C-alpha cells in the first residue's frame, strides 16, 4: 500500500502552503494563522509518525521501571500492582497492538501518580526524598524525549539543546 500517512501528509501540507495560503485575503489574519498551524502540524505528524510506536514502547518500559521502584519504596495497592503487571505484559509482548501500549501507559501513569501521592502523604522526609529522586530521574529523560518530539513547533529558545528524538530512541536519523 503506497497511500501511507508519511507520504500523504507532506503532500497535503505542501499543497496548502503553495496553493491555498497565498490566495487567502491578507486581512483574514485568524484564517491565515490557523492554516499555518495546520500546515505545521501536518509536517510534524509526517516526521514523527513513523517513530510513534518506538516512542510509546520506550516510555512504557521506563514508566514500568519507575512504578516498580515506587512500589518498593512506598508499597503498592492492588490496583497499581495490577497496572504494572499489565504494563509489563504489554511492553514485553510480541505482536502487541500500538493502542494496547498507549492504554497500558495511561493506566500506569495513573497508578504512578497515586503512588507518589500515597508516599508523600505519610510525612516521612526520607521517603519524600526517595520519591522525589525517582520521579525526577524518570522525568528528566521523559522530558528530553517530549521536548525533542515537539522541537519543530519552535518553543525552544536556544538555551539548552536536546538531542533529536531519533537519536534518543536509537533510530536511524
Amino acid at each position, binding site marked *: 500500500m503506497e497511500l501511507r500517512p508519511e507520504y500523504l501528509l507532506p503532500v497535503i501540507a505542501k499543497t496548502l502552503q503553495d496553493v491555498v495560503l497565498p490566495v487567502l485575503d491578507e486581512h483574514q489574519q*485568524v484564517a491565515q494563522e*490557523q492554516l499555518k*498551524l495546520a500546515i505545521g502540524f501536518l509536517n510534524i505528524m509526517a516526521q514523527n509518525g513513523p517513530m510513534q510506536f518506538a516512542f510509546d514502547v520506550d516510555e512504557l518500559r521506563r514508566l514500568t521501571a519507575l512504578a516498580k521502584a515506587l512500589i518498593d519504596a512506598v508499597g503498592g495497592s492492588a490496583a497499581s500492582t495490577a497496572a504494572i503487571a499489565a504494563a509489563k505484559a504489554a511492553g514485553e509482548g510480541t505482536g502487541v497492538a500500538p493502542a494496547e501500549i498507549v*492504554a497500558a501507559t495511561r493506566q500506569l501513569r495513573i497508578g504512578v*501518580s497515586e503512588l507518589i501521592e500515597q508516599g508523600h502523604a505519610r510525612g516521612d522526609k526520607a521517603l519524600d526524598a526517595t520519591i522525589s529522586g525517582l520521579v*525526577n530521574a524518570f522525568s528528566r529523560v521523559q*522530558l528530553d524525549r517530549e*521536548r525533542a518530539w515537539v522541537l519543530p513547533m519552535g*518553543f525552544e529558545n*536556544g538555551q539548552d539543546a536536546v538531542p533529536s528524538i531519533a537519536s534518543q530512541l536509537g533510530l536511524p536519523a
Partner: protein
Amino acid sequence: MSKVPYSLAPYPPASYPLIDKARPSADWIDQVRKRFPTERGWDEILTAKQQRRAGPGYSPIAVADIVVRLEALLRHELPGPFTITDAKWLAGGASKLQIAFWLEWDKPGAGQTRERLVLRMEPPESAVETSRMREFEILGAMKGVLPVPDVYWVDADATFMQYPALICGFVNGVTKPSGATSAVTGIGINFGPALREPIGQQVIRDMAIMHKWDWAAAGLKSFDIPVPGTQAVEWNLNHWGRVWEEDCNEEVPLMTELLFWLKANMPPIDRISLTHNDFRSGNFLFDETTQAITSWLDWELAHLGDRHQELGFFAVENMGHLSEDGAQLLSHGLMPIDAMLEQYERESGLSVNRRSVEYYRVFFCYRAAVIILGTCVRAARAGKTHQDLTVAWLSGFAFRNLEEARSVVERIG
C-alpha cells in the same frame, strides 16, 4: 480521595470503574471541590465549567448574529439611539472570542461620540476559565491607576449574548514590534535593542504601582481577601491543582510531584498585593513611535496575593530569549532577571525574596502545564473553542515548562 481512572477512549477499556471527565457527575464535581478548596469566586467559575462540560462544542458564529445580540444588550443599557458599524473579528486571543466594532452613541459627559470598542466573549470552554464579572470589576478599578482599556458593560450571565461577555474600549498599540516574529500568544517576543530598555522600565514601574496600589479602598466585591501568611498561596495552588484534576487527559508523574513540592514550600506573604497573574510581554500594548505602554490587557486572572508571583513569572526562562551577542538571557525579552529584580526593589521600595521568586518560577511553569497540557488538550479534543488548532499547538510548550520546573526544584530542593 485517590486518583480515579477515567475514560481512555478510543483505547481499550480499563478493567475498573471509570470517571468520564467529559461528562462529570455531580458527586465527582463535589469530591474535587472538597479536595481543592479555593477562593469563592474561582470555586464558582470552575464548578460552572464542570456543569457545562457535557454541553455542545463551539459552532462558528457569524459576526452579524453577534451584532444582533449586541444591539439587544445596548438597547437594554443605553437610553438613547445608537449605531453599530464595521464589526470584525480581532486576531490573537486564543482564550476569548473578540470582535472590534464602532459605536456611535450619546456618551454621558461627552455627547454624540463615535468610538471603537471591543466585545470579549467566552467560548464554550476556554484555555483559562475566568469570570467576565471579575474582569469587568478589576478593569474599572484600575482606571487611572495603570493604562487599561475603558470598560463599559458586562453581560456576566449571557442574558443577551451567546456567551458571557464584556465590552471595553479599543486601545491602539501593538504587542510586538512590526515585523517581529514570536511563537503563538507572545512567547519569546523580541522587542529589539532600541525598544527593550524603555519598555522594560515601564513594565517595572507599572508592576510596582500595581503591587503598592490600595486595593482595600477599591471595594473589589468579587474578590476574596486573604490574610497575610499562606492562605492566598494555598488558594492559588488549589485552584490550579483542581483544574489539573478536572481537565488532565493523562496523568503526568512530575505534575503530582510538583504540586506536592509547591504545597510543602509555600512562602508566607508579608503584604497582600493585587497581582495581575499574567503580567508579561504579549499582554500589554505599546506605541511604536512614542515607545509608551498604552494598555495592560487580560486582567481576567487577577487576584490578591504575593507580589513575588509577578516577579517569579519574569524569572521563567522559557519566556525569554538570548541577547544578540548570546551572552545574556533577557527575561520576557526585556532585561536580565537580576537587573529587573534590583530595579523593582528600587522602584517599589518593596523587598524581594529570591527564594520566593524561584518558588513562583516553579509555580508558573506548573500552571502553564496545567493550562496547556490539561485544559487546552481537553478543550481542543472536544471542539470547545474558536481556535482549537491554536489551543492544541500550545500544548507543545508544556514540556519545556515542566523541564524548567524540574530543574529548579532539583537545584533549590
